[in-house]
Structures are given as structure tokens and as C-alpha cells.
């Protein structure tokens, strides 16, 4: 079960950071001076890290 969840995280991670999703994000806007695309990358990245940590530390079989 745990490995299936991790696989899901990996697939979503790969999906969010590739075509076609990335095509919609790839803009020149910026938030607080940080290019939006870069911020998007950092957020997705951090999301994957946090999900992985949570899945592996929860007491599941």
C-alpha cells in the first residue's frame, strides 16, 4: 500500500513538471520578484518531498 502511494506521488510529480501541464505554467509572470515558473517548480518539489515524508512516517503496513 505504502509503495503504491509513493508510486502515485512519483507519477503526479513527473506529470506536474512536464508537458502538457508545464506548458500552461511556462509564463513570464512573477510573484514577489520570483519568476512564477520557478516558484511553481519549488512548490511542486516541496509538495513531493513532504508527501514522501508523510507516507513513509505514517504507521501503515
Amino acid at each position: 500500500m505504502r509503495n503504491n502511494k509513493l508510486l502515485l506521488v512519483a507519477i503526479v510529480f513527473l506529470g506536474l513538471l512536464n508537458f502538457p501541464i508545464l506548458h500552461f505554467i511556462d509564463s513570464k509572470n512573477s510573484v514577489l520578484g520570483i519568476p512564477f515558473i520557478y516558484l511553481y517548480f519549488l512548490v511542486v518539489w516541496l509538495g513531493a518531498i513532504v508527501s514522501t515524508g508523510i507516507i513513509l512516517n505514517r504507521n501503515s503496513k
Partner: protein
Amino acid sequence: MGVWEIAFLSIAYLGILFLLAFWAEKKKAQNKSLINNPLIYALSLAIYCSAWTYYGSVGQITSNGLSFLSVYLGPTLVMILAWGFVRKMVRIAKIHNITNIADFISTRYGKDSRIGLGVTLISLFAGIPYIGLQLKAIAQSFDLITQSTPSATFYQDPSFLLFISLTLFILVLGPRRFDSSEKHEGMIFTIAMESIIKLVAFLAIGIYISYQIYQGWEGTLQLHTISLPSIETNGGYGNWFIQFILCGIAFLFLPRVFHVAVVEIGEEENLKQASWIFPLYMLLINIFVIPLGIAGYALLNSSGLNSDLYVLGLPIHFHSKLLAFIVYLGGFSAASGMVIMETMAISSMISNNLIMPLLLRQKGFFSDNQNQLGSINQNIRRIMIVVIMILGYVHYRETESLVNLVSVGMTSFVIVAQFAPATILGIYWKKASRQGALTGILTGFIISAALLFLPNLGISTDVFRIEGLNPVSNATYWSITFNVLALYAVSITSKQNGKDANQSYLFVDVFEYSKNIENSTIWRGKARLRDLRQALSGFIGKINTEQRLKQIAKANNLSLSETYADPILVTQTEKILAGFVGSTSARLIISAISKEEQIGMSEVILLLQKSRDLQASNAELVKIDAQKNEFLTTVTHEIRSPITSIRSLSEIMVEHEDISQEERKTFLETIIQESDRLSRLVNQVLDLEKLAAGKVNFDMHSVDLGAVIEKAMMNFTAIAQQNQVGIQVDVSQKRTQRQIHGDFEKLVQVIINLLSNAIKNVEPSKGIIQVRLYENATHICIDVEDNGIGIDPKYHDQIFEKFKQVDNPNRKIDSSGLGLSISKKIIEMHQGTIHLESSLGHGAKFILKLPIQKTA
């Protein structure tokens, strides 16, 4: 800062690292490992972030935009899945004592020496430029911070001194004499410390530029209106996707990363936390890449500084000496860490898969040097470390400085990624064969090398260029595709031999076999114990040899006093040796001291099946043990209740002398009843145990079952009348005189057991028990049927077990629960069967079937 100042400080830094390593080793000797925890493990994985990360990413920003991120996103993807995938590799490596990627792959494929050699040479080919690149980063950053120009002759170059120090560092902390596990406590600890330094240094310069100088990101990015190339415009999504995947798979197969991730891991559990800590590390080290890149380009591009050195150029530009030194130290850490681990890993591969096998194949080498193989092995590694360092240095001195960090790194990635298909398929697909793996790796290597290097020699490979893909992605696409295809096609068409098949099972099903690996590794032949001892003591010394052999012998119940060694001792010795010299060389040593027999494929499958069955039967034994315990508890309980009543009744009689004669008589009768119950119970337990142990002698004759029923009825009629239960016997269905072969008295006992069982289940005065005798072509059968409350079908399986009594309101207390169990044993001894037909409320019918005696 001055040349000698920096040179001195750098060497002093190495000195401090050395002391830290020394301290870690000392702690380890006191059994307080500093590295066996998730944080240090994750930090040691950051060895992946070399000078390429440290200096290269920033240099790429203005030309390639965000594409540098794929270098970290790919490995993040792998780390998310590490708990499943990397853990499997870790377990395999631990079980087989594997110490590098070449050994891993060759061990999987029947310990094929050609595969080990191929992987070694390819790793060397990819590793040398990569090491050269790090040395170049050290030298260039040294020149920049000291504002000196590189000397034309290498010995006048101060950075040469750093190179020498680094080499000495590796030699001292590297190859071990007596430790087969290839664990380098001190070295890993320094690598982790260096990872901290490089992260802190990079964050420091990032924060300094973005916040101190420019007051925030906005300032940094807007001050210089440089637009970053987007992923779409820079190579497009195809390149991005391919590099994403490429970096993920190459990550784990880089010799240094494989070494820290798979070999130097303390406990498997460490992987759990490292799966998120290491990606977090990569995220942190990348946060400031964009502002640094933009600031560097805006401020330093005009000065003509190599964009790979912007990170160091920036603090120098702002005359911040301290920060410049910290940044330099961070870069030195990134580069030196990579060089240390890479040379270690590659030197062990070369020694295990090239030099040792060459020496061992020389006639007489093994017998002449048997006692000093350990030190020969250690010296070979030392020499190899020096050779690799020199090759790396020469590569850096001789190549044009135009080549940037990233492209050399990427080229190495494409090449080591060729190990991925053979490894990944190898641990998930049993049919992947050695020919397949060899063909796949070679095909992939040749294609990638051709596409990447032929253009440098002026030979165009444009015919194979896929539109929109850059050379690296293009080479990745073609080489990996054909690698996988070749591996697959050859594997399904070639036949595995026994050894291959054995290894493929042990790898793919590692979690099933890991508890029972001694019995799952198959070897057949003859080896003298004396020779095994000698081969081992050449590496681990005489005392350790005896200890290890005793351990193995004890764990497997083997004797160490025989002339020829048990196969388990041989395979275990081979495993220990593999820790020192790799699987290929260990194989050669074992074949030098033994006469080995080939094992067929079908035999391997059979033996593996056995090994699995053994695990299953172990589980069965545990279950039986539990049943036995339960049995004992029930027996003691059953014995205790009559004893308690006997005791309390006797007590009453002793203490109260005034009780009436009548009462006294009732008490004494109860005592007699209880004693009877007790002795019956004890007899039954004894009977059952004897039956189970097969110790009961059966007095076998021709038996007429009609007579058996008659005898049982004689004993039983009185009891039936007492309980007001009617018994009907019908023997009219048995028309012939055929008999069975059996023990008359024991069969009477069975019928009595069934009848008493029936009596307990029916209501007095309403109960009717029917006994029927009949026959069919092969069997004579007896039904004992009652009209009692019946037994729920869900208990039918349990009813014949010891002490299993189904809850029954009508149950009389004097049933021990052993009768049916005994009856079943007796009937089984007669090759007969007994079973029950019943449902709740509809009575119970026991059916006995006994085979008809064959007339002589």
C-alpha cells in the same frame, strides 16, 4: 588572497576533515557509529552534488534557463520510489556482500566476469573526465581566488599541491586490509560534513547577493532585465523530459552514488528518512541559483570570466574576502568529495574485475600468494587510486578549458545510464539473462559513445539526429532504447544456465530468500576444508577465519572436522571473499580450490523450491509448537477440575466429622467418579500421544464389523438405558461376509467413543441413536447418527482436533474432548476415513469408511 595562504588553508581543511574521519573511526571502534543514521546517510547521498552543481548550475542559467533543474528533479523522482526500489538493491548487496555497481550487475548475471569487466571499463571511461572536471573546478577556483594564472608546467602549479594532498587523503582513508564489508566510517563522515559545508556556503552567497546586495529577489532580477530562456524555447519539452528521466536513472548508477547509497548504508531503515531529506537538500541548494546566475551574468559577463565561476566571482567582485573564501571552500568540498568517493569506487571495480581476475588466472599465482592475497588486493587498490587520480589530472590539464562543467557531466550521465536496464530488469525480471545484459550494455554504450564523441572527431551523426532534441537527449534516446531492446530480445531467446537462474531468483525474490540465503545458494562440488581455511586467512587472518567458520558451522549445524567442506561453507566463504575481491575474483578463488560440478537449470528451480518449502515447514513447526502448548494448557485444566473436587470433598469430610453417613457416601461416590474421570483422561492422553508417535501396536486380523458393533453395544446398552436414550442397530444392509483388516478392540473403542459422543448430544428420553452397517464395492461403512442438536458446519474441521468441543448446552461434563481425536487416529491407522455430516438442529451423523480386506 595569497597563493600560499589559500593552498595552506585548503590543506589545513583536508587535515581537519582527516581528524574528523579519524574521530569517526574511533567512535565506530567503540561501537558508537556516527554514520548509521538517516541524516548522515542523506547528507552522504549529497555526494551527488559535485562541483557541477556548485559552480555549473549558475553558469547555465542565462544560456539554458531552468533546464539545470532536471539534474535534481530526476533523482528526487528516484528517491520518492527509493523505499521500494533502492531498498531492494540494498538488501541484495548486503546479502551477497556486493561492494560496487560492477559487482552488483555481474553477480546478478551468474557472476559473469565479462559483464563485471565491461561495467568497470565503461565506468572508468565515464569517470575519468568527470574526475578531471572536479580537479579543474578546484584549480580554476584556486586561480580565481588567488588571482593567479595557471602555470604552464604542472609542478609549478600550486593547485598541484592540492591534488597531491587529496590523493594522500584517499590513500590513507581508503582501502582496508581486514574489513570485508567495505564500510568506510571515517570517509563517509567527512563526506557528510563536506555536504554541510557546500550547502551552507552556497546558501550564504545566495542570501548575500539576493538580500544584502539587492534587497530581495525582485531587486536582483529586475535590476538586470535579462529574460531567462523558458523550457519551451530552450530545447522544448522533449529534451526536458528525457533529461529528467536520464538524471534520475544515472543518479543511482554513478559509481560514487551507488557506493554511498547501497554499500555504505548502515541500516535499511535509514533509507526511509533519507527519501525526503536528500531531495530537500537538493531543493535548498538550488533556491538561489537563479538570482546568482542573473547577478553573475550582469556584473561579470563583461569581464570575460567563465560563467562556471560566477558563484566565486561575485563575492570577489564585492570585495568580500571572507565570503569568497567560504564559497571557495564549499566548491572545494563539492569537488573533493566527489573525487574521493569516485576514485574509491572505481579503484575497487578495477581491482575486483580486471586486475585480480587477471592475476588469479595466471598459473601458480594463487598457490604462490595464497597467504598474502589480502595485502596484494589492498595494494592494487592503492595503485589504482593513484592511477585514476593521475588520469583525471592529465585529462584536466590536456583538455581545452572551453568545455563547460555541465556538458562533461551530462556525457558521463548518458554513459552510466546504460547500466540501468540490466540492473532494473535484473532485480524485477527473472528471465533477464547474462547474454542479454551483456548485449544490452555494450549496445547502449557503443551507441551513446558514438553519438556523443564522433562529432568531436569531425564525423557527423546528424542522420540519427531527432529533430528538436539536443545531442545529449538524442544520444540518451537511441542508446537506452536499443539497450533495452537488445537486453529483452536476447534474454527471451537465450537460455539461462543453472548459476544464472539461481542468481536471478535470489535477486528478484530477495525479500523471500533473505532469511534462508545459505540454503538458497546452490553449489555442488568438492572442496577441502583446509583449502577454504587457507583462502580465507589470506584475507581476514587465521583467528578471524576460525571465528567466521565456527559461526557458519554453528548456524547451520555443520561439522568443521571433516576433510571436505559442506557446500554451505563453500558458498559462505565465497561470499566473504566477494566482500574483498568482488564476485568475479571470489569465483576464481573458489574454483581454484575446488572441483565444481555444473548444475542444471531444472535442478536449481527444484532446489530453490525446496528452500522455500523449508521456510514454509519452519512456519508449520511454529504452528505445531503453538498447538502443543495449547494442548498442554487444556490437559492441565482438565486434570485440575477433578483434582479440585476430590480435594475439596475429602477436606469437607476430614474437617466435618459430624456429616451424615448418607452425605459421606455421596461424597465418596463423587470422589470415585472423579478419580475415574481422571484416570480415563490420563489414559486417553497417553493413548493419543502413543497413536501420534506411532508407538501403539495394532493387533491386525480379519475383522467382522458386525461383531465390532455387537461388542460395543454390549458395553453400551446399560449406559443408554441409564440416559434414557434409544439405540437402533441396523446391519441388514451388509449382505456379504466380506471383512476388513484391523484391530478388533481398537475398533470397538472407536464405536464406543462415537456412541458416547452421540449420547452427550441428545436430549434424554427423546434421543435416538442409529447405528447402520453397510458396504459398497470397496469399503465397509458404519454410520452413527443421532437426533441431537447437531453441529454447526463451521466447526466440522475442528471437531477432530484435541480438546475441541463445540459449545453445546446439553454437553455432559465428563467429556474430555479427546475421544474423537483418538477415533480419527485409529481409523486413519486402518487406512479408513471418518467424517461428519451435520447442521445445527438436525442431528449429527459420523460416517466411518474402512477398506475391504483383499482376499488372498
